[in-house]
């Protein structure tokens, strides 16, 4: 079932084209990452599909039009920052969310427990640390048992402990089978949490698909030798290796996955090159991302 269909969305702020003909399709159960550098149009896309920004052209549809204009009551979302009434407690803020969603069965203790905030439920929002505010925003997305949850840069501005806590909560939510849409410029986050990804830059869609399909099946080799120049010439002559580049005091090359690291070692030895370091790793999303958005 299609959860969200975006067709040819464009949005400009004066002369700046924030989105240019963007189309996406997100299906039920996907954990969908919208990945792009800062200013690529991620938040603008979310702002439009959440009804707070008007697109210049294009259209979008939630749930195949099933819920009409009240479709956002089926969505829990944070956009940019956690937004609550600062003079109200966590519990009172969640009650306002319930009221808007028309939900009467919420268990505030349970959702606050999920984000480890139940001990501060009677404290005003303004007394919270940034990490706690972010966690309350995540709790608020769970109110009314929504079908879709949207996070925009959920770990922005958090300290390492806060990042770890928020990621753990997100992974927990993603594992419940809900559709999750997450915008982020942090590749590691998307790679760890998402099943699908769309990469955008300057408002253009550059690539989309499952994280597996976006991830190249090529293997990256890291090599080191006392004779680095000799090693470089040697690698250039192997047809199933490409892009041998120097990174610090090592060389990196991409290897066709039909070959093995042992073959490289054997050939180097036969050519009289002694390798002092040889490691293979699967190419990470970060490298793909940098490659795609170059």
């Amino acid at each position, binding site marked *: 079932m299609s959860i969200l269909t975006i067709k040819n969305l464009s949005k400009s702020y004066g002369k700046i084209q924030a989105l240019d003909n963007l189309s996406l399709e997100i299906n039920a159960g996907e954990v969908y990452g919208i990945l792009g550098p800062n200013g690529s149009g991620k938040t603008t896309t979310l702002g439009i599909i959440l009804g707070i920004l008007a697109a210049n052209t294009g259209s979008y549809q939630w749930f195949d039009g099933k819920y009409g204009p009240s479709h956002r*009551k089926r969505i829990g979302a944070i956009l940019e920052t956690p*937004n*609550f009434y600062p003079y*109200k407690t966590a519990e*009172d803020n969640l*009650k306002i969310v319930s009221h*808007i969603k028309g939900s009467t069965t919420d268990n505030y203790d349970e959702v606050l427990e999920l984000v480890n905030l139940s001990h501060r439920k009677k404290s005003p929002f303004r007394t919270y640390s940034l990490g706690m505010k972010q966690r309350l925003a995540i709790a608020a997305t769970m109110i009314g048992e929504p079908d879709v949850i949207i996070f925009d840069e959920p770990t922005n501005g958090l300290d390492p402990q806060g990042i770890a806590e928020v990621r753990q909560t997100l992974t927990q939510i993603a594992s419940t089978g809900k559709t999750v849409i997450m915008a982020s410029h942090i590749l590691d986050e998307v790679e760890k949490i998402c099943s699908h990804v769309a990469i955008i830059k300057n408002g253009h869609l550059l690539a989309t698909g499952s994280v597996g399909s976006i991830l190249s099946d090529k293997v990256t080799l890291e090599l080191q030798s006392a004779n680095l120049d000799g090693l470089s010439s040697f690698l250039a002559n192997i047809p199933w290796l490409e892009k041998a580049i120097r990174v610090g005091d090592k060389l990196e090359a991409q290897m066709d996955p039909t070959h093995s690291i042992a073959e490289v070692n054997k050939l180097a030895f036969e050519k009289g090159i002694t390798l002092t370091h040889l490691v293979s790793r699967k190419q990470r999303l970060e490298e793909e991302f940098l490659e795609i958005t170059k």
Partner: protein
Amino acid sequence: MNAMNLLSLEWKKFKNNSVFNLFGVMYLVTYPVVIFIGKELQLPAMVLDTNDFFMFPNNWQWMAYVGNWLVFFFLGFIMMNMITSEVGFKTMRQNIITGMTRKDYFLGKLYTAIAISLATTLYYIICTVAIGFFHNDPYSFANAFDEPIWIFRFFLMSMGYLSFALLIGFVIRRSGVAIFTYTCYILFIELMLKWFVHGKVVSNSSSINYWPLNAIEDLAPLPSWNKLENVPMKDIDFAFLLTPSHAMIASSIYICLFIGLAYWHFMKKDI
């Protein structure tokens, strides 16, 4: 969402808000107190008999005139704060993201303006009747409801200020700038516009009194203006006030216009 549901949501949002509570309490306390300052005025009786402030039925006019200033100041600020603070906290956009339609969000604020106007009109009635009752000797309600039109004029006056505050709040959005614009428009800008358009701030041309806030002010004017109008002065040849019926008609049109413009602006702008 129905009207009661929207009003109950607004109450949940603002019942602990310090500006809402402070200005609300100040209004409730100041309103009946201000009229008693009149007791301290030492005016010759031929100019103004200060008993007029307290006796039926003229105290309806005086209480409406006091309300004119206080509603403009305290309740107008509360109304703007209920919009601009939500922009500042970003809860306006969050309410929409959470599931409200823009129309419902706007209606929540409009119903609040109507509810505040009804509540303050009720308070006007209670204060005026109580003050009049306790100043009759012996205590009496005689002539208390001789001029019931004042109740409607007071409600319309309150709706006029609150709908103007609604428009300023939705269009300007930033708290400080909105309060500055609202206050300056009423105190100076409209006078300046009159000067630019008519070449003077008072004129014998009747059109000069139809400016928006002038029309709303004329719903509950200083009662002494009426006395001045009866004084024949050959050098002063202009109408001080709109007639009550013209003030009511003009104000009603402006209220619809303010609400319509605020709605149109809110529906089409990014939040």
